[in-house]
């Protein structure tokens, strides 16, 4: 899943790149959402008494519940979402996918054991591990989105790569996913926790790639190498090299090739037939649809269609669905609040210098509210 420990590494080395914001501050923004990630989240999180929601035939409906209500929440906050679905996985991901399959089998075995033993907590735990987003789930989500008037895009390959391309082309403002590899694919702004439930009161985390590169003092090319060293979905990494050492090595040698020439291979054994070049190419030039050809259009929701789709066999409450459709409709009618950014020009940014070793200066907002920091650099 994404890049191993990148979030933690950024918090330590480039805290200024991570900002926290309330969801309501994203009004008027077009945001590309990683659909598979969202569906997965919903299948895990939208539950009643530990079980997924199901319809009369025992088919899961958690994902539809999630897509419907969380999308409405985004729209009510003035956000214009566009969902991006994964296409076929890249060939290089097969290793990772096999690993996931093995883990799934393990979980299945543990689940059987737990069921035999009757251990409720364990059953639930392994049940969650077995959650998988199927083609059927994705297809239903697409139908639902069409009825809601929300656009979606079928990426030819990885959704994060497609999202990143759309951000770069200025089609959307940001990519929303939990996967950090959206940054590696070059999305300028990554939003995390956007589709979390409101009840969790989790602020949206905004990560800026330019500030990440600045904070780590690496180029975009070097950043990709760093992500490969940390561990990505497409190839193995060198055993024994974690976040701290990876960044030290990269800053010293500036590329995986020179690192390989300089490290003690008996201590740090690179994987056999390590295809880091392939992974690098995948990040730099992924298979995507030309973002210029994408036209995003938000339509009026089809209230009766929604009721027909969700309230028949799927047993959703008709009144709630109609209410939801009205909310979508209402949000479309209002004019958008403008921002000052477009009117005024930024003269200077005064970003206070933060020392990496200073514990107080990790991007912990609570510490900030307390006001216990040093004063800004006098001019």
């Amino acid at each position, binding site marked *: 899943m994404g890049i191993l420990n990148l979030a933690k590494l950024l918090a330590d080395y480039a805290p*200024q790149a991570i900002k926290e*914001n*309330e969801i*309501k*501050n994203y*009004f008027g923004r077009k945001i590309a959402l990683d659909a598979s990630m969202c569906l997965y989240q919903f299948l895990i999180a939208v539950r009643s008494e530990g079980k997924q929601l199901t319809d009369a035939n025992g088919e899961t409906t958690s994902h539809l519940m999630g897509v419907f209500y969380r999308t409405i929440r985004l729209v009510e906050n003035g956000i214009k979402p566009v969902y991006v679905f994964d296409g076929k996985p890249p060939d290089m991901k097969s290793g990772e996918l096999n690993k996931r399959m093995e883990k799934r089998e393990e979980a299945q075995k543990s689940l059987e054991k737990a069921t035999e033993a009757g251990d409720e907590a364990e059953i639930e735990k392994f049940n969650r591990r077995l959650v998988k987003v199927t083609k059927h789930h994705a297809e239903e989500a697409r139908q639902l989105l069409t009825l809601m008037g929300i656009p979606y895009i079928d990426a030819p390959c990885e959704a994060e790569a497609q999202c990143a391309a759309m951000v770069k082309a200025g089609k959307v403002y940001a990519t929303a996913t939990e996967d950090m590899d959206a940054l590696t694919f070059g999305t300028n702004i990554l939003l995390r926790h956007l589709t979390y439930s409101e009840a969790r009161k989790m602020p949206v985390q905004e990560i800026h790639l330019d500030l990440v590169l600045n904070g780590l003092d690496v180029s975009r090319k070097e950043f990709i190498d760093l992500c490969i060293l940390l561990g990505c979905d497409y190839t193995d990494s060198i055993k024994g090299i974690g976040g701290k050492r990876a960044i030290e090595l990269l800053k010293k040698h500036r590329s995986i090739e020179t690192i390989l020439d300089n490290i003690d291979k008996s201590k740090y054994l690179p994987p056999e037939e390590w295809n880091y070049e392939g992974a690098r190419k995948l990040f730099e030039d992924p298979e995507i649809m030309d973002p210029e050809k994408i036209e995003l*259009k*938000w*339509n009026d929701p089809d209230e009766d269609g929604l009721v027909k789709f969700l309230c028949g066999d799927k047993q959703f409450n008709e009144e709630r669905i109609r209410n939801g459709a009205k909310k979508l409709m209402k949000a*479309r009618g*209002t*004019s*958008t*609040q*403008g*921002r*000052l*950014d*477009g*009117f*005024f*020009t*930024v*003269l*200077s*940014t*005064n*970003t*206070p210098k*933060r020392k990496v070793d200073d514990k107080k200066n990790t991007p912990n907002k609570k510490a*900030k*509210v307390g*006001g*216990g*920091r*040093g*004063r*800004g650099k*006098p*001019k």
Partner: protein
Amino acid sequence: MFEARLVASATLKKVLEAIKDLLTDASFDCSDVGIQLQAMDNSHVSLVSLILRSDGFDKYRCDRNLTMGMNLASLTKIIKCANNDDTVTIKAQDDADTVTFMFESKKHDKISDYEMKLMNLDQEHLGIPETAFSCKIKMPSVEFARICRDLSQFGDSVMISCTKEGVKFSAAGDIGSANIKLTQTTNFDKEEESVIIDMQEPVTLTFACQYLNSFTKATPLSVQVQLSMSANVPLVVEYQIPDLGHIRYYLAPKIEDDEN
């Protein structure tokens, strides 16, 4: 060394009231000119620009320019400790990470000292271009506050349209609609009670009530308010602080969605 002394601490209280709705933290830039503050709210919809000129203080000394980042909730706590007729002195060392507020009672029999930790704040300085506005409206600040409060009951946004007949504020929502028209009045005896409209070209713009209502928190600072508008640029709402400076609010208009 920085030191600024103000006889009326009430003014400071009012200034703080006028900004704390919009900002949670703020950086005060101190220089020979005075104390300045420029900051946008979190959503980047409005901007506060405040200046308290050095000559407006009873005593002002600033050896080196310095920026003081403060949490406004903490600052409010401290300022609340002052009586309205106390004299307030703000002090900071050149390289200190704290600021001291000293309140002296009128009879000089009580002196209180409050020290507050300063913060390191990320901030962007924005260049605000000089605009020749199509419409400038001067009116009693209390009247403006009243209009904003009344209209916000009807909808989320207020449409302000200025023509040669006068200025019209309107709002519409679920319960119905509301319209308030003001015409130019000149009251030579009491200039502050008159409505003066200086119009080059008619303008109609829509703004969010929520922000306008936050701006009107500055009403106690000044009897008059000036609104400046031009098509497609932010609204400027300005309150003069007598003998000390001014506070200006900029607000981005609402835009109709043309894509859908």
